[in-house]
């Protein structure tokens, strides 16, 4: 156990750094740049039961200290993820990977998780409940404690792997939703997903993004992440994976002080493809600077 190592649902990570889903593909693109085995793990591209092209373009808009995306969960579908993407990943990543799963009905989530449960490479299932429920009038599963709990329970029934529920910040009471997931059997909570945002082009006087709205991420949302991680960490007894605008090793320490056991890095990977490697390399310096011996000692330390 090195000073950076942490435990996440019974699996030891060499360090808490996890590239967030949707910013790291299936890993092998980044493996051309650096040895991705230096990562704690990574959360692969959001996977659904069926293949998806996603939304029309433009899908991206820039903001001050961040960006909005409306990619729309483009992915090849769980069958191809297992038959094509995971074997490619195996050639460049020896560790357990976090499987990120999305769905538009409870049974979709269960089906996709059941398939991924059979994959030895998968260490955790990270279940994104920010998607609209097609049987629930399009309301996101993650905005309602009962719906979030229903997804959690359905997924827990089909897997023995740790289930981490990834929560949307676009809710009135994040604590109630996190508690409902914990009661339904979740092994961990990850947060925050992107904040709903929008930009308008002054030249065309139209929304920049074809989908009009999208998920706002990047360093601008970091304080929101710290607040929500802190609130949830003080309300549940399961580990938290913190994320939202993390860019530096200092941000990692701050989010862990707020209560995160591990930290995902998202949009920063898109600006600096070496962001995660750089953060990992910089962590020992930051620990020394702030008199921290082991990262695992500081989790939830800010009271």
């Amino acid at each position, binding site marked *: 156990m090195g000073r950076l190592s942490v435990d996440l649902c019974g699996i030891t990570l060499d360090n808490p750094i996890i590239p967030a889903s949707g910013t790291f593909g299936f890993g092998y*693109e980044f493996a051309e740049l650096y040895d991705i085995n230096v990562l704690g793990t990574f959360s692969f591209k959001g996977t659904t039961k069926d293949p998806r092209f996603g939304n029309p*373009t433009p899908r991206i808009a*820039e903001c001050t*200290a961040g960006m909005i*995306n409306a990619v729309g969960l483009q992915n090849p579908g769980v069958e191809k993820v297992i038959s094509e993407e995971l074997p490619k990943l195996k050639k460049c990543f020896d560790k357990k990977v976090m499987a990120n799963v999305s769905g538009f009905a409870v049974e979709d989530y269960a089906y996709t998780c059941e398939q991924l449960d059979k994959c030895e490479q998968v260490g955790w299932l990270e279940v994104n409940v920010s998607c609209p429920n097609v049987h629930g009038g399009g309301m996101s599963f993650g905005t309602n404690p009962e719906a979030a709990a229903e997804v959690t329970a359905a997924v827990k029934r089909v897997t023995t792997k740790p289930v981490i529920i990834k929560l949307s910040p676009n809710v009135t009471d994040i604590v109630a939703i996190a508690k409902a997931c914990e009661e339904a059997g979740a092994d961990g909570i990850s947060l925050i997903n992107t904040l709903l945002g929008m930009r308008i082009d002054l030249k065309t006087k139209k929304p920049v993004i074809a989908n009009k709205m999208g998920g706002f991420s990047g360093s601008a949302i970091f304080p929101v992440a710290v607040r929500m991680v802190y609130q949830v960490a003080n309300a549940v007894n399961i580990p938290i994976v913190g994320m939202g605008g993390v860019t530096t090793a200092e941000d990692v320490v701050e989010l862990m002080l707020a209560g995160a056991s591990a930290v995902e890095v998202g949009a920063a990977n*898109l600006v600096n493809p070496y962001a995660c490697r750089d953060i990992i390399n910089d962590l020992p310096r930051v620990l020394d600077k702030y008199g921290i011996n082991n990262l695992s000692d500081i989790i939830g330390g800010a009271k």
Partner: protein
Amino acid sequence: MKQTIFKITQHTQLTDTVYKMCLQGDTEGIRCGQFVNIQLDGLYLRRPISVCDCQGDVLTIIYKVVGKGTEQMAAMTAGQELDVLTGLGNGYDLSLAGDKPVLIGGGVGVPPMYMAAKELVNMGKAVKVILGFNTKAEVFCEDDFKALGCDVTVATADGSYGVKGFVTNALEGMDYSYFYTCGPEPMLKALYKATSTSGQFSFEERMGCGFGACMGCSCKTITGYKRICKEGPVLKKEEILWED
């Protein structure tokens, strides 16, 4: 892909809105038809700019000021440094050119044709070039292509210089073996219909990362989904699916 710090060695204004910047640094692996992605102070996302030329350790880009990022670039001076991701995108496949390819650039789509022209001339091809602009004041690079020994035709929409009309007017009756093009989408669509041979089109899209990670710039093609930044920006005529 490579991340490199480049130093600006030369920066000149070509027209009211178009600038040429020469950057010195590690250019290894840069191919014609690719693009680079430039980080700018205070702006979150990098700015993708096509490669105009690459000679020794000097990378040349020509860009048009269209927004905050390019405005900031226009104010930079020789000696300043830029953080650049290079080697992005697939680039043009010049092996399909045949004996007498035509290169067609429209507006700020002209620069990527330069390196393609240079390499095709070096391969011994009889290279024809059509450059399209709105008006005489916007014309740039004509002499650069002529200096390579290309047969250059300029078209202006208002007829103030060269052939009056669009690049498609200049293409009429021309004898060519294959084509390469880059320009605004209406021009690409018109060329798709007007060309009699196969060819390659370079596309533009708003990008997140520029290196294939975010799926921000995906498009549908006859051969499946492609990322403009990774499997593109160059698509072959046979694989293009136009979306209305």
